[in-house]
């Protein structure tokens, strides 16, 4: 009996065998790894991303500058879904200009600072998980340069007071837009030259300085800004003016820190530029309580000749395969976005990876994702000329492959 059916069983088995050869479909694959380039067909449109953050729906919010007529860059917010597809955008009213990073999560919203085009005062803008603006708070500090979350659900703001010609660090209450500050002189007698360079930083086409700010544990804050003629990493306790606990001076405006990420205690993952050269310090103890002798030149570090001169560098930290990994991202001479993966414990390079071919690519920022992967935002120049926002997402598995 069975013998009579055997040929048919073989045929059915063969069909099943063939059907089993089909490619496995899984939407997760499209979420794990993707590249997206967000294009506008405007000949004169230009977008330069500053930061990217993942939302609760696993989508992404991108904060970017957009080209405007006039001196200052406009504000642009883009929302993409978890597959990197475009969802929505906001070309913020040109009354608000010069957005600065980072996109700071607080409660259910994200916050960022930008500048009022008329008064030059900072504005604190809150956006929801969909990328819609839900509030704007006036901040009296002028020319915002950099910001970061503080430890007490507030924000730390670095700004420039062009009236008194002073660098100002302040903590900002998101409800009131006010908070204590410390200010630091540009340098007696040399303010005009430095101020000219600082103000150009705020113009769309001026040289950009790597301003950043943050809070260490306790009441110690740090900022990378101008003090006494020099771009310096300054450690201070909020309150008195021109009072710092520690300082690492750069080389006027030709050298200084390009990024610094506190690890623990006085240890930082940092990068330094010095007359065009770039140095990576994956795990460096910095002097936060005194004037570091030699300034940045005494820090050493690994040189990365593939980085462009005085490169934009971003860094973040993640735990992968039970290792603390420091990821540096920067612009390479090959017009790609380079990522370098360092082992924090051994202070050694594990691997590198490059994003973008054919057209130029520049780093915006890099961030970890909820699924254990990495997301990188940047600018690509479509057709070699139109600046557009791009996102690269790599999966947890690919991220782990970078960790040796």
């Amino acid at each position, binding site marked *: 009996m069975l013998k009579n059916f055997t040929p048919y069983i073989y045929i059915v088995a063969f069909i099943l065998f063939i059907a089993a050869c089909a490619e496995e479909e899984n939407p997760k694959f499209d979420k794990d790894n993707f590249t997206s380039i967000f*294009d506008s067909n405007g000949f004169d449109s230009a977008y330069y991303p500053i930061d990217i953050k993942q939302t609760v729906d696993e989508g992404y919010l991108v904060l970017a500058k957009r080209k405007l007529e006039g001196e200052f860059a406009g504000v642009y917010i883009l929302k993409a879904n978890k597959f990197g597809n475009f969802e929505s955008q906001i070309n913020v009213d040109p009354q608000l200009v010069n957005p600065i990073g980072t996109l700071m999560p607080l409660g259910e919203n994200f916050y960022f600072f930008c500048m009022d085009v008329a008064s030059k005062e900072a504005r604190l803008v809150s956006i929801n998980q969909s990328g819609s603006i839900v509030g704007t708070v006036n901040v009296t500090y002028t020319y915002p340069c950099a910001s970061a979350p503080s430890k007490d659900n507030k924000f730390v703001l670095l700004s420039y007071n062009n009236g008194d010609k002073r660098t100002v660090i302040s903590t900002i209450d998101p409800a009131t837009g006010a908070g204590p500050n410390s200010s630091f002189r540009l340098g007696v007698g040399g303010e005009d030259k430095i101020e000219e360079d600082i103000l150009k930083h705020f113009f769309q086409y001026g040289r950009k300085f790597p301003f950043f700010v943050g809070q260490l544990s306790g009441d110690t804050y740090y900022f990378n800004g101008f003090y006494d003629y020099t771009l310096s990493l300054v450690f201070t306790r909020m309150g008195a003016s021109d009072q710092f606990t520690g300082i690492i001076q750069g080389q006027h405006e030709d050298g200084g820190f390009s990024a610094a990420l506190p690890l623990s205690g006085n240890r930082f993952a940092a990068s330094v530029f010095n007359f065009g050269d770039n140095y990576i310090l994956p795990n460096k103890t910095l002097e936060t309580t005194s004037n570091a002798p030699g300034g940045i030149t005494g820090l050493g570090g690994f040189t990365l000749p593939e980085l462009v001169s005085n490169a934009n560098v971003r860094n973040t930290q993640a735990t992968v395969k039970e290792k603390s990994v420091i990821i540096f991202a920067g612009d390479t001479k090959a017009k790609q976005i380079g990522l370098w993966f360092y082992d924090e414990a051994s202070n050694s390079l594990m691997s590198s990876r490059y994003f973008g071919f054919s057209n130029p690519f520049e780093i915006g920022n890099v961030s970890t994702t909820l699924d254990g992967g990495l997301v990188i935002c940047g600018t690509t120049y479509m057709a070699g000329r139109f600046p557009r926002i791009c996102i690269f997402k790599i999966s947890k598995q690919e991220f782990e492959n970078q960790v040796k």
Partner: protein
Amino acid sequence: MKRLYFVVLCLLMITGLNAQHRNKRPKLSFNKSGKEKDIFLKKQWWVGLKGGPNLSKAVVEQTYSVVAPTNYELSEITKQYKHYKNLGGQATLDITFYFRGFSASFQPTYRHSRFEYTNNYEWTSAAEGSRLFQMKYTQLQKIDYLDLPLVAKYEFGIDRIRPFIQAGLYTTKLLNANKIVEVTKTDFASGGVNEIVDDPIIVGATDLFAKNHWGFIAGAGLNYNLGNVRLNLDFQYKYGMSNIASTKNRQGNDRLAGVGDSLDNIKLNTIAISVGCLFPMRFLESGFKSLDKK
């Protein structure tokens, strides 16, 4: 892979059951020469080679794009496929068992398929309409496959010319794939019309395609009996049933992602024409004469 293990397990079980019920085969009687007229063609194994050109059509199941428009419709930059335009080729080893008009044929085939699509982009100035820049990507896929088809044929007609129809299934293993991207830009905004043709981007793309896919085969053909050998003209239409793109590595090539390319989910249909020669494997004696033609 789990599905594959399951199927292999089923096959092993069937084979085992079949072995339990196998009776002794009766002694074949048709091997007695001269007993029946034309016995040579009543039951025969044929083995031969055939080859020829093919044309392919990519059928889009789901479209994917690296470029996400923010102020225009995605349809404006959707890939435009060219169907049955790019010539490929195939070479086949044909192993056929023939019995009273019906044949079962296993035809392992090396197949080279090519298909092409284009993307068009355009940037204009809202203020000045004459500020226009256009860019066109022409993307050619060149894919090498090993097809493993199992085909049933029915042959009819008399004498030398014997038409046949055929139908079956095939599974395919990816051997190699390459992509060639040609970029043409036309600049209308810089004081004239300037066409820029970049050097083509040529990349290995094996990772971008599915390692296996499958489909149905239908076709027809003619056998021409020339002495003891058989000349064969074969027309086959391969109808792809599964996705040929790798869903896992869709954007696995940074160079292609950099120019905004991402493979769609596509099924591949192929028209193949082959000519070949088949040789009988039974009832032959020395001098390549058939036993029934003595």
